[in-house]
């Protein structure tokens, strides 16, 4: 499935509201552990996630979701799959270099994040993704804490264990701190 820039069908305010609901807690951890205990439950859950996120965000199931810090615009829709911001080929009107009729996902991401005071999320450094995890449920990974090394602050090591968690990032973002 080729990456194609997709404007989310979920409004940005609703997305951030959902983010608060879905934040890992004992309940989500228990639920996700239960789902993972059964092959069938895991497959069904992953299928449901795929359907929902495909419809809403054009999700391609990289399994390492960046949406919480990209204004809920999927960076894997970028034809170059850039996770750290736009390339230099964005048109003056904000169009994608490869699909000039579509908006660059990072222009979209910046506008949506900035509209909610979250522009500084885009300063986070995203580590290279693990291509073995395509097709996995990123919700399960998120609740189980396996996603914590996906992005970090400057000076952080590339070693995933040293990553900042989403909660830290969101908190720092609200305080308008600089991560790099």
């Amino acid at each position, binding site marked *: 499935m080729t990456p194609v820039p997709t404007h989310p069908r979920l409004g940005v305010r609703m997305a951030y509201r959902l983010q608060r609901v879905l934040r890992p807690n004992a309940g989500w951890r228990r639920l996700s552990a239960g789902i993972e205990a059964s092959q069938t439950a895991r497959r069904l859950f992953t299928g449901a996630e795929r359907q929902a996120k495909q419809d809403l965000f054009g999700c391609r199931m990289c399994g390492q979701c960046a949406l919480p810090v990209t204004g809920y615009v999927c960076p894997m829709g970028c*034809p*170059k*799959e*850039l*996770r*750290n*911001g*736009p*390339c*230099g*080929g*964005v*048109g*003056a*009107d*904000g169009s994608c*270099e*490869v699909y000039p009729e579509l908006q*660059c996902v*990072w*222009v979209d991401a*910046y*506008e949506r994040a*900035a509209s909610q005071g979250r*522009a500084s999320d*885009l*300063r986070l*450094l*995203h*580590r*290279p993704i693990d*291509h073995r995890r395509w097709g996995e449920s990123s919700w399960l990974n998120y609740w189980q804490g396996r996603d914590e090394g996906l992005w970090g602050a*400057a*000076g952080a*090591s*590339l*070693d995933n264990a040293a990553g900042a968690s989403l909660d830290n990032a969101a908190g720092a973002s609200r305080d308008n701190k*600089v991560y*790099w």
Partner: protein
Amino acid sequence: MSLRERLASGGFAVTAEISPPRGASTDPVTKLAGYLRDWVDAVNITDNQGSNVRLSSWAGSLAAMAAGLEPVMQMTCRDRNRIALQSDLLGASALGIRNILVMTGDHPKFGDHPGAKPVFDLDSVQLLWTLRTMRDEHTLLSGRTLNPPPDCFLGAVENPSAPPLPFRAERLGKKIAAGAQFVQTQFVFDVAAFGQWMAQVRDLGLHEQCHILPGVGAVRSRRALDFIRDKVPGVHVPDDVYRRLRAVPEDQTAREGERLAAETVRQLADIPGVAGVHLLVAGNEQAVAGILAEAGVRTNEAGGRTNEGGVRTNKAASDGR
């Protein structure tokens, strides 16, 4: 004096660009290096620019070195995965190539193999981060140790005139955090807009952490002007610049293009935080000497006089090598 030393000394640096040939010979690189040798601190060797197959940038870099010109080896994320990219840095460093310019790269769609698989395993920020870690922490992305580690001076690119404009300076900040020590920009035709970006860069203090070299192009013909305006992704040619270059008779477009380039160099040199210029003149290397002399940032006379711009001289540029 190497590019790194020139920038560290606070001198006005000049880099240019050579596109390697479509063919199995480095002779064209050697020839072009001859035009540039006495005028620039280093020359970029492009990496299959525009997604068109050319002689590899490491081979072109070796040819430039042999011709007495310090190379800046361009490295895009388009064609190689993290294994090949790390391996190429080790090879380049072992062979004496020090300056590495990291960029995302054009999409294959724009080149001569539009059906090629776009790799983009790492993005430019991740590649900078990886190379810095290899150099400073002596480890690969996998965590395995390197012995000896590579020695490199890391560069990045930025396009100050592409949306989202408020994020462009911050994006440079990310690249610096990841490891960029110098940055070359896409064509600057709109000096005022570049000045606004530089103001944001200075507000963030980035010009103190990274040497900034805006890109200046010399338009050779009306066809080239239209190509740059309409076909090169992310380039903004303001209407007054376009009109100026169209206003002269067609046989004088090249001359006017050089004059405009020289003026642009002079204006950019006066912007606080600008460390030099990057001349985007691939295919027009002969113009470099004239542009720099006219801009007053270099002269070809021995003894090196300081010019009107008060920027920097001179012949010394070529002596240190």
